[in-house]
């Protein structure tokens, strides 16, 4: 894989998240019922940042933030290949009746979001679930769309969108990686 282009730097990421936080508040007139759920791994710090932005705009305590692991809800268990590590789901609040914002870094096929919806619904009955993603790269395989998007980036399937976050990777940036000719396997 080689880096083809940088599609977001730290400043653009900050602006995008700030805009998304404003949009979330516009769509949710009752911020008291809001809660954020990040999909492991990079959705979790992004959910935290959005919650902090919402709190700063409103001048009130940040809405609760949870972490969701969707591994056990994936529909590709039969695929040949290694299984992903199962992490803990940490949602310390009752999801029932809340307006949830599900947060992930990249929206691609939509299968992760489908799994996340199944996982959330097993935890209770939220009033509403909205989806926020930093990057929408297209190639949906399911009828799923995001309510809040940081940036829409049309990509080729052979390309790979890599979101790097300070909390996980030590820096804030989004790059497109491209598979080099002759390179086998998945990125």
């Amino acid at each position, binding site marked *: 894989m080689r880096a083809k282009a940088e599609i977001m730097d730290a400043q653009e990421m900050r602006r995008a998240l700030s805009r998304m936080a404003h949009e979330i508040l516009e769509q949710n007139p009752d911020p008291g019922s809001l809660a954020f759920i990040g999909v492991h791994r990079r959705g979790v710090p992004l959910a935290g940042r959005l919650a902090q932005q919402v709190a700063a705009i409103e001048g009130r305590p940040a809405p609760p933030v949870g972490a969701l692991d969707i591994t*056990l809800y*994936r529909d590709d268990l039969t695929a040949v290949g*290694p*299984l992903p*590590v199962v992490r803990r*789901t940490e949602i310390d609040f009752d999801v029932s009746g809340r307006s949830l914002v599900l947060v992930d870094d*990249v929206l691609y096929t939509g299968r992760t979001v489908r799994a996340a919806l*199944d996982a959330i619904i097993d935890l209770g009955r939220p009033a509403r679930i909205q989806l926020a993603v930093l990057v929408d790269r297209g190639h949906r395989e399911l009828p799923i769309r995001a309510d809040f998007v940081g940036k829409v980036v049309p990509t080729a399937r052979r390309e790979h969108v*890599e979101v790097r976050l300070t909390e996980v990777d030590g820096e804030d940036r989004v790059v497109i990686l491209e598979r080099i000719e002759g390179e086998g396997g998945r990125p």
Partner: protein
Amino acid sequence: MRAGDRGEARSTWPRHLLGLADLGPDAIEQILETADAMRQVFDRPVKKFPTLRGRVVVNLFYEPSTRTRTSFELAAKALSADVVNVAVAQSSVVKGESLVDTARTYQALGTDYLVVRHASAGVPHLLARTVQVRVLNAGDGAHEHPTQGLLDLYTIRRRKGRISGLNVLIVGDVLHSRVARSDIWGLRKLGAHVAVAGPSTLMPVGLETLGVRRFDRLDEALEWAEVINVLRIQRERMQRGYLPSLREYRLRWGLTDERLRRLPEDVLIMHPGPANVGVEIDEAVLVDGRSAVAEQVTNGVAVRMAVLYLMAGREGEAG
């Protein structure tokens, strides 16, 4: 990060779970970590994950064991698998069907996992060599009981926060105990110090080759131990001359109420169950806050869920 690829993936995993002797420390750690995630299912309103939907788990028990069988059944059902329980008295084994034939029949019926309990050591290994189905050892003779060993490790780690460097004592009939063997292998691989205590008639030859210390007096051993795993004494051992009397066993090797009072506040007491109350362990010990006997049962389901999940991938791989 590509959607659909959540974090790092496991690299290698054995096709079967036959014993802790052949499992590396990394694999054991991975089971314990996965069990931690699985344990969350008990606190949720919907106590199920859809992970093994459409998979078939057959519990093939040639020896009666309600606890282990139920635990495997609940674990498989919590992952949405379909479960079939086969009690041997009702099966074609009584009509002369061999072990291997039975396993082949279940393979032909579309079984994905065969959970096997048998009185003879090595039966799960034989089946693993014969059929393509994934085989889980649920206890083979006096050899291994890997999921019990794993749930003991998990319980210790949950209660004590670590395994490495801990002094773990196994008390009782080590000679006939498959739990003791799995515990010893697992604990040693994760860096615990392991000791045994019990009548010399019930101690196997060559224990020292496993890196295990032996105490001849229980009270001395209890002073050393941070974790105590009390094994069940089977009453037929008395008839076969291994023990003079159950009363004497209790006096010399039983974890009695009186011995409990001398134990430190942070000691952890375990028992694989079912216990012979008043023989190897007293009622007061079982209900004491230092005992994790009930928790072991809950943890057993989480550990078995973890194992079933981790064995689920790599379809189509042979051997």
